[in-house]
Each structure stands twice: as structure tokens, then as C-alpha cells.
């Protein structure tokens, strides 16, 4: 009976096939190992372990942080994985602790910001799909710069634990919530003509102060932890000089850095004209409509 694909019966071809299969397997294992080295998946999952109630209360907290009482994160004592009888303390996930940072809100706020600016630009008659990409790149530049500041700060402040860096990255994204509120309110009041004017500046100032207060209170526990907490795994007391350095960093970060970035983000409103792309024509010029 003639068989379809009979070249597989050839020993040479079969050997080649097996070699190819094992090569692919080795390659996959290599990728998997290195993937887990760069992105700690279980640590990231902790930041996305949120609930409906958490998201609502945290968003309100970012906008109205004035009256919130305890800012410290709750800890739990769990059995140590090394089974030597001792207990390790871990922070509770965001689902159970409203003071815990998460990455869901910052990520959603970032994407909402990109879409909102594009929508407002579109309602002003200046939509082109490149706007989506341009806004995304601009906002990504802000994020990258902020990560750079945090990374440098990590060296100056001698932050060793990895979870602290993830915490800082998460906290840096909360300003997008304030930026969104500013842009939305200004668009409604100014009829989309930009974020200038009394209302725009007032809302901007308010959200900036709220964000700064929120960061100050929350980051105090991240950067200046009381001893014997999970963010201080080596149980070393932080030296006096280092404490004051960290406090200075905290103030500078919360006020100056956030102000600069928030202002930059809200100023990107594209109503003064679409930034010129190379070639200067854009879609309208090409298709003549």
C-alpha cells in the first residue's frame, strides 16, 4: 500500500528528525530557565492578586489620602519553607491589605491615559492612528525615566531586597490616576481645548498634592522600615546616616520628581497641533482627505 510521506522511513531522515526535536527541547529549556531569571513570575503574581473592593478603595485612597489612618502594611507569619520550625513573615497580598501596593491599578491607569489622550485628540478632529503609538511612546519614556531614578536611588540608598524594587515600581505608577483625573476634568470643563486655565491648574495642583502625600506616607514604610520586617530581610538596622539620606530621597522623589513627571504628562494634550513626524505629512497628506 503506497504510503504518503514515506521518506520518514529512511533512517537518515529519522535521525535528523530526532536531532531536531532534541535541539528544540534544549532550546526551550534554556529559554524557560532564563525567563524565570529575568521575570520573577510568582513575585509579580503577588502584585496582581487584587479584588474588586481593593481596587475601589485604593483608587479612592490615591485621590483622597488625607484621612486614612494606619499606613503600615499588614504582615502574616507563615511557616518557613525550609521547615526548620521557624516562621517567616510575609506581607499580605493586596487582596487582603489595602496598604499593599499592586501593579494592576498603575498598569490600567497607564493604558487609560494613552487611550484618553487619543480620544480627546480625536474629538478635536486630530485623530490619526499614529497618535496611539506616539502617546504610548511618550508615556513609556516617562516610565523609563522614573525607573532610572529609582534604579539610581537603589544604589545610593543601598536597597538590597528585590521586592522593594517592585514596590517602588508599583508606587511610581499611581500618579497616572491623578493625571487621568486632571485630563478628564479639564477636558470636560475646557471642552477639550487643553489642560490650561484655572480649573485645569487647580485640579492638577490638587492631584499632585494628593499623590505626593500618598507617596510620602506609603514609601516611608518601604524605605525606612522598622526593623524586624519582611522588607528588611537581613535584619540589619539601618544606620542613622543612611536613614537621613533615605528621608531626603523620599522628599525629593515625592515632590520634585513627581511634579516634573505629572506636569509633563498632562501637558501632552496635542491640541496645539500634532507633533511633526518625519516627512511632515501624516495620513492626511498622503491620502488627500
Amino acid at each position, binding site marked *: 500500500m*503506497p504510503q504518503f510521506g514515506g521518506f520518514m522511513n529512511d533512517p537518515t531522515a529519522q535521525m535528523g528528525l530526532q536531532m531536531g526535536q532534541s535541539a528544540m527541547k534544549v532550546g526551550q529549556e534554556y529559554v524557560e530557565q532564563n525567563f524565570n531569571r529575568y521575570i520573577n513570575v510568582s513575585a509579580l503574581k503577588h*502584585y496582581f492578586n487584587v479584588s474588586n473592593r481593593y481596587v475601589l478603595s485604593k483608587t479612592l485612597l490615591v485621590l483622597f489620602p488625607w484621612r486614612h489612618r494606619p499606613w503600615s502594611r499588614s504582615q502574616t507569619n507563615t511557616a518557613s519553607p525550609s521547615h526548620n520550625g521557624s516562621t517567616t513573615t510575609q506581607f499580605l497580598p493586596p487582596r487582603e491589605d489595602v496598604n499593599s501596593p499592586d501593579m494592576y491599578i498603575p498598569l490600567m491607569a497607564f493604558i487609560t491615559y494613552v*487611550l484618553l489622550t487619543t480620544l480627546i485628540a480625536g474629538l478635536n478632529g486630530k485623530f490619526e492612528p499614529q497618535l496611539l503609538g506616539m502617546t504610548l511612546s511618550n508615556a513609556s519614556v516617562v516610565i523609563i525615566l522614573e525607573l532610572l531614578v529609582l534604579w539610581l536611588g537603589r544604589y545610593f540608598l543601598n536597597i538590597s531586597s528585590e521586592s522593594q524594587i517592585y514596590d517602588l515600581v508599583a508606587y511610581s505608577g499611581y500618579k497616572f490616576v491623578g493625571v487621568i483625573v486632571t485630563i478628564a476634568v479639564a477636558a470636560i470643563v475646557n471642552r477639550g481645548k487643553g489642560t490650561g486655565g484655572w480649573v485645569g491648574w487647580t485640579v492638577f495642583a490638587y492631584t499632585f498634592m494628593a499623590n505626593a502625600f500618598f507617596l510620602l506616607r506609603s514609601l516611608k514604610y518601604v524605605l525606612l522600615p522598622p526593623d524586624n520586617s519582611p522588607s528588611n530581610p537581613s535584619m540589619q538596622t539601618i544606620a542613622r546616616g543612611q536613614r537621613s539620606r533615605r528621608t531626603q530621597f523620599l522628599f525629593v522623589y515625592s515632590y520634585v520628581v513627581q511634579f516634573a513627571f505629572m506636569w509633563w504628562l498632562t501637558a501632552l494634550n496635542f491640541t496645539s497641533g500634532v507633533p511633526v513626524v518625519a516627512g511632515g505629512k501624516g495620513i492626511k497628506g498622503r491620502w488627500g482627505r
Partner: protein
Amino acid sequence: MASYGYQPNPAPQPQSSYSAQNNLNFYQSSYPQQPVSGHSTPFQAAYGAGTQSNAYGASGTANYGFGAFPAQAGASGQMGTGQSGLRTGWLAAFGTEGYEGEPPLLEELGVNFGHIQMKTLTVLNPVARIDQNIMDDADLAGPFLFCALFGTFLLLSGKLWFGYVCGLAALGAFSLNFIFSMMSPPLSQDEMNAAQSQHYGGSNHLSSTLTLGRSSSVLGYCLLPLVFASLLGVLLPLDSLIGYIVVSLAIAWCTYSSSAMFCVVGRMTNMRGLVAYPLALFYVGFGIMAIFSSRGTGRIDAMKAET
């Protein structure tokens, strides 16, 4: 055709002894100096129904150039004799027959119209119950079709935005898969083992039951209401109040069905609102493209003209 993609092993094969001899003979002399014989089909030659002369004739008949697919390494020394089962002659050349035992083309490609229809109806019916295994065969044929339709309707409105549709779909699929993998509860240890051993489903990397293929499939199928909205946008301008309402309804419908599917497949049923929000953002992106692509009431062009 001078190119034989696969040079057969001229050593005698154990399967068919008669053809081993043929093999040796034909390998040298199969080039079309043989008289073309219209009578013997390659099939007959393969089964040895004819004599040696038949086999000779058959070898010259057809060098179809199917270099890669001899029927058997031993039995067919020449690719084109059609001992693999192809018939010869004019009628067969214009027919749709193929090799024997070959599965139908659509089945080979993995396009299962019954499944596509079932999934499409699940999307269109807002009150349907979603089976947990609906996405086990995560095909992308339906999603590709819907994205192509969306782009086509935008084209009929005057905007050549296929590239942007494709880019938004790809970017959204990657990031939504990442987000939902992070949000879904981690796989238990035996699920991880199962995923690793048989590729049964679920990504080992991100420790969830969602893979990129499944996420893209769900997102693509749930784009259907927006495809309808863009079809409507060909006929009436979406830039008006009724256009906004229609597109908002379409976005809400898309979000509703896709969040239902993701919650079931990703086992996150208590977080449906949180799952729905990123999906809403994704579909708002498409909705923005649909609205601002329409020829409109002239309001947008007037605004462009005045600035």
C-alpha cells in the same frame, strides 16, 4: 522536471521485493525518454498489476515534480510515477483528487467550521452559558477573519488602516495575555506537571491556564460586535450621536462576552469587573478607530480645516 527533492535510497527495501528491482532500474532510466503510455496508471504500476513494461511506461508518464513525496521509499524510485496514488491524465490533472488516505484540506489546516460557528454563536448570544472547555481548540482562523473584515469595512469607509488594526490586535493580545495570566490563580503543582508533559494547555512560564493562543482566540472572536458596528459605519456616519451610541453598545457587548469567556477559562469568576476593564480598554481602541474612520458628518473635516 529535473529536481527531485528527495533522492531515494537505491538499496533494496524489505517491503516490496519486486519493486526493489524496479527501483534500481528506474533510478537511472526514469528520465522522460520513455514513451508516454496513456493506458497504465501509476497505481497499477505500484501494485504490480502490470508487467515490467507497464512499469516502464508508467515511469515515463509522469514526472510531476512531487519530489518530496514518494509513496514509499522503496516502491517508488521516481517521484512522479504517481505510485503514491496520483492518477494521471487530463481529467485527473484538473480534478481535485489527491493522494490516497489524505485527510481533507480543511481538517489538515485545522479549520473546523463547526467549532467556529459554535464559538461565534456563543459570542453573539449574551445569555449563553460558557463551557469551560470551549477554548480548548484555540483556533485563530475566526479571529483572523474578523480582523480582516474589520479592516475591510474601515477601508470601505475610506481609511487604509489594516496595519494599525493588526498592530493593535497583536499588542493587545500580548499584554492582555500577560495581565490575565498574572491575575489568574497560579497553577497547582500537578497541573504544572501535566502542562509540561503533554502540552495539554496552560502556560508553564506564566503559571496559568491561559496561553497566548487561547487569549488571542477569545479576543478575536469577541471582536464580532465591533465588526458589525464598522459595517454600519460604511452606511451611516459614526461620527454622530447615534454612531457613538452604536459603538458604545458594541464595545459593551464585546466586553461582556469576552470577560465571561476569560473568567471561565482563567478561573477568575470573582474578579469579573477587574477582568472586564482591560478588555473594555482594548475594545475602546478598536472603537476609536471605527468612529474616527467614518466619513462622518463633516464635523471632523471642518475642525481640521479650521486649525
